[in-house]
């Protein structure tokens, strides 16, 4: 196993870890808020679930990017690529956009969702409005994912 390959794998790990941490904190925030609301009104489970699940996408984007890296390196089976040290760094850097936008936007989306949960508690009919607000935050994770995919696509091994 070469140093280049190791650095590239570190990139994949970054994408999953940071995206996952962001989502975990975000979903945690929204989940706490919704449990509070459900203690008063258990009927709202369905609509609150949507808001709690929303900050989960950053983790999926990170996972997805890591999987693309795995595919690129041929780690699922067959012949494992042997990238040079420079190529390894390139892959690691390519993973950074999705990793960091995922970390920060996941946390903040969680906060928006948590306050959205309180809003739905008072205005159950306006469920979609906080969902849209949360999607505004998610934009930056989507853009991070987009650039990671394009960068990975551009790196030739």
């Amino acid at each position, binding site marked *: 196993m070469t140093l280049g390959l190791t650095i590239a794998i570190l990139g994949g790990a970054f994408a999953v870890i940071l995206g996952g941490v962001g989502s975990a904190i975000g979903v945690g925030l929204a989940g706490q808020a919704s449990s509070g609301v459900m203690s008063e009104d258990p009927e709202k489970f369905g609509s609150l679930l949507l808001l709690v699940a929303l900050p*989960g996408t950053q983790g*999926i984007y990170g996972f997805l990017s890591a999987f693309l890296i795995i595919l690129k390196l041929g780690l699922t089976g067959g012949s494992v690529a042997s990238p040079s040290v420079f190529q390894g760094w390139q892959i690691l850097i390519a993973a950074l956009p999705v990793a960091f936008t995922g970390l920060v936007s996941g946390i903040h989306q969680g906060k928006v969702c948590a306050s959205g949960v309180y809003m739905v508690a008072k205005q159950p009919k306006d469920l979609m409005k906080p969902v849209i607000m949360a*999607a505004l935050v998610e934009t930056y994770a989507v853009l991070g994912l987009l650039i990671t995919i394009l960068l990975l696509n551009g790196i030739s091994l």
Partner: protein
Amino acid sequence: MSVADVQKVHIVAYSGLKKTFINSLQEEGLLQIEKADFDTLGLSTPFTEVTTVEHQLHRLSHALDYLSQWEERGLAEKLFAQKLQVTSREREEILSEDFIPLLDQVENCEKEKNDIDSHLRFLEKEEEFLRSLQSLQLPIKSVADTETTEVVMGIMPLASFRELSAETGEEAFWSHVISQGKRHVHLLLVYLKSQKEHYRQILKDNNFSPLYFTETMLKEAGDQGKVMDVIQALSKEKDLEKGKRELLEEKGKELASSREQLMRIHDVLLNEREKRLSSRNLGETTRAIFLEGWIKTVDIPRLEAKLLPFSELVQCYFRPPLPEEDPPIILENPRIGRPFEIITKLYGLPQRGTLDPTLYLAPFFFLFVGLTVSEAGYGLLVALSSFLFLKFAKPRGGLRQFLTLMAILGVATVILGTLVGGWFGFPIRKLMILDPLKDPVSFLILSLALGFIQVWFGTLLNMISRIKSKEYLQAIFVQGGWLILLPSLVLYALMKQSVWGILALVGAAGIVFFAAPSRNPIARFFGGLYSLYDVSRYLADVLSYSRLLALGLATSVIAMVVNTLCQTALDIPWVGWLFAALIFVGGHLFNLGISFLGGFVHSMRLQFVEFFSKFFKSGGKPFKPFALESKYVEFI
């Protein structure tokens, strides 16, 4: 396609007709009643009492909630159940029914059950207390002070008890361990009254807390009863109470069969309340009633036909809304566009005299959801399940509209998924026009091009609505300027032909000279120059559409991941196929959920933030006709 015409209606009727009149208005549901301007008209407001009805409604819905625990229907049955139907004649009958005894029965049942439950809890606590003392072989009554000694029962930490034994070893102090737990010990203590201050202090220092038998226990025990006897008596009482509770449970089940009756009454009363509330908006003189409201212009003949039987006693006047009035907004679209009204309504209804964006956003929304989900298999599942639910469960109102929208979006996903995605992660290469995984740049350009078209179209709509509101200069030079500037900039950048450059300058000139409203030519020029800076906003708006690529790719890659995992699972000997099947179904369902959620929400955001900001003004009031409302039943 647009906003429906509404007219103001004023109705004057003979006051003897009031009740029949209001009934028929509610049945038809054509009119939104406004509060009449009593002061200028010199009319009085009739007083109608609603608190009784409201109180009854409250009791009814509470009783229905309570009885719902005995409802014996599965989830599927609930989903596909038809609502109870109630005709208008039945409504009259229901109104004269005396349902109060039934309601009382339900409430009593609930109250008795609650009483029994709290009594049972009390008994259990007592029993728990006695269990720790059960080895005490004395009659309970004898645990009491004598003339010369104090007798105390209590609990103490084990460690403190050892110290206590050491401290009081030789003295006139007798202790008996009733029971010993891991950390605590239950004690019976006897000491001389003459030294009670001394011992009490020692006990206090050793964290002793006294325990007492309650009145009920003493009563149960009588003169000779021991702890075990009381425990037995208590459990006998518990059984008795449990028996009563079961009887009540039976009664509850029985009462639950009359839920349907209560549901009917609830909904009929609900409308009774609405009627009473609405009649507060009427103006009244001794002989006549006066009513003011809004009605759709196309509905006027229906209202007139309805009032024909009373034509001699009723007079209606219709007129178009005055400029200073704010009539309610009713969206009117052809059938195919109607489900998309959900999206417009979510943002807000258009202001009076502005465009209804529903039909304009529909094709874009259709495309965007298709591209962001881009999985034909998921589209097929969503379209089929929405369609089946619509066909068999026959939902009404908002749910029906939403499911129709989902069915349409499912079809969009089938089409676009086949073209740029796959079927459950397997692309059909022959039918594909573009593979975003292999050629993401082309897909990105496609996304941005779609974004450019929508943003440009939004600016065009802005121009049209400005022309409608007679702001010709703004419309032609500023909006027109943008409409020329934006595409020529793009074309110039792509082809470097000077003709596009000149066109861009022409467009920009219009913006520079007409965008700022100032009369001072210098301020006007620089103000106009500043609004050219908006070009960066247009750029940002168009770039925002790159999410179409990212979300579309995310769906395909996750689908691929699921399939790869299945492949790996297949290698497990013997049960590999089972794991593979589970991963396939679970993984794809999960992906379906998140990709539709993401696709729907982000496509909606593109409409609201990027498209609507160009031309749409929300703030219209919704049309709320005075009509029959129902929660549990369906009125026919």
